[in-house]
């Protein structure tokens, strides 16, 4: 017994060290499981405040570029308004067509709400990157909401506190976003290979399916996070997978994550309803 105590005292530092390392690795693996309630992330108040002060200062540096982007976007939207107005004029000439054309559309867009937020913390250099934004549950943001920017898809909300939220962008090993090539209905999964923040990969694309370099990649709308048709990027290159029937497409991401400053969070009003419906189906015993 005395020997044991002497041994413990002699090697106490080692035990202390191993204990702390165990805590660290517990945290690492805890974070890997999807549902975790750990408060050790930048949506907490201390980290959020520090980032929001620095974000306030940094937002002044990008004003000129931001302004130019807004002008460009404004022009584009104006153009679309004119186009729609013209379309409406032609359609109103035929009242039967009007009714048919608008019933479908308004139902599709009415179910999404948009919340605009500012990026206050961001990284592109790590293997698992995260983005912190300056709005949280008070603004109506919840976990699992989709996030886009004016340039394309950004990621999915992962953690929310009352005033801040952490987004898991495409640039994260745990991000899988269901995408497809514009004008085709074959879905593939968008993942990131952890090397360059400008590119991602679309996996599982069937070889017989036609595509061209420079084609647009858009969200498929199969998950209940993103609506269909949001721009993701363009095809840059393709390579064979180990299985000969599929290709991996290299995708140039539309969103420039390094200079991201404003994002739009999409809340889907019908999401809960859809999940409940799908749960009901899972709960039923199979016959």
């Amino acid at each position: 017994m005395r020997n044991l105590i002497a041994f413990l005292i002699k090697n106490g530092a080692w035990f202390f060290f191993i204990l702390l390392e165990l805590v660290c690795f517990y945290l690492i693996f805890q974070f890997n499981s999807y549902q975790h309630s750990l408060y050790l992330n930048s949506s907490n108040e201390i980290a959020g405040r520090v980032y929001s002060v620095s974000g306030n200062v940094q937002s002044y540096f990008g004003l000129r570029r931001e302004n130019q982007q807004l002008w460009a976007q404004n022009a584009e939207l104006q153009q679309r308004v004119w186009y729609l107005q013209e379309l409406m004029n032609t359609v109103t000439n035929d009242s039967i067509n009007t009714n048919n054309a608008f019933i479908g559309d308004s139902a599709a867009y009415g179910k999404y709400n948009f919340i605009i937020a500012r990026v206050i913390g961001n990284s592109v250099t790590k293997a698992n990157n995260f983005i912190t934004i300056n709005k949280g549950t008070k603004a109506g943001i919840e976990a699992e909401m989709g996030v886009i920017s004016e340039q394309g898809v950004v990621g999915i909300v992962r953690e929310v506190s009352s005033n801040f939220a952490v987004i898991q962008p495409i640039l994260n090993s745990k991000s899988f976003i269901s995408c497809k090539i514009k004008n085709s209905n074959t879905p593939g999964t968008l993942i990131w290979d952890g090397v360059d923040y400008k590119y991602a990969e679309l996996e599982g694309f069937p070889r017989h399916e036609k595509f061209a370099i420079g084609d647009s990649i858009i969200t498929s709308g199969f998950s209940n996070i993103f609506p269909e048709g949001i721009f993701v990027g363009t095809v840059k290159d393709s390579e064979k997978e180990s299985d000969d029937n599929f290709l991996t497409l290299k995708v140039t991401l539309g969103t420039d994550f390094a200079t991201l400053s404003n994002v739009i969070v999409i809340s889907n009003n019908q999401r809960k309803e859809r999940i409940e419906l799908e749960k009901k189906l899972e709960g039923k015993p199979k016959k």
Partner: protein
Amino acid sequence: MISFIRFSILFIVLVLLQVLALDNISFYGYATPYLYIYFIIKLPIGINRYFLTLLGFILGLTIDMFCNTPGIAAAATTCVAFFRRPVQGLFFQQEDFDSYIPSVSAFGGNFIKYAVVYVFIHHAILLSVESFSYFNITNLLLKILTSTVLTSLLIFAIDCFSSNKKKV
């Protein structure tokens, strides 16, 4: 007491510098400086080993909180804090252990060797644990080496600067 305040300030400054500025640096997609390890390098030589390990853990955890990497920086920093004495033993002369705080001006070449090896160990652990999810050995080695060079250069620049000021 004065050194306690000095080290507290050093801690806060290094953490803020790391999370607000240095974390956004990535030369050619590879080299990112992790300067916060300078805090562990500079702690007094005769410091209690338990306290040193605990400080490493707290420093790593603080960085993790800001960078959304729970446990990764903490694991690396705790480990190097615990093995600081053996690494120092490799490079320091007997009489070096009599002085209080390690610095370039007091130790010269020994400090440089100690700091480079120390930074290398830290970066190797940090980046290896981080790249669990995408294992790409060439990419990982390049990242470790370039980041070590960058962090070491920054450490020498700061250390020379601060010790010159003291002499004047």
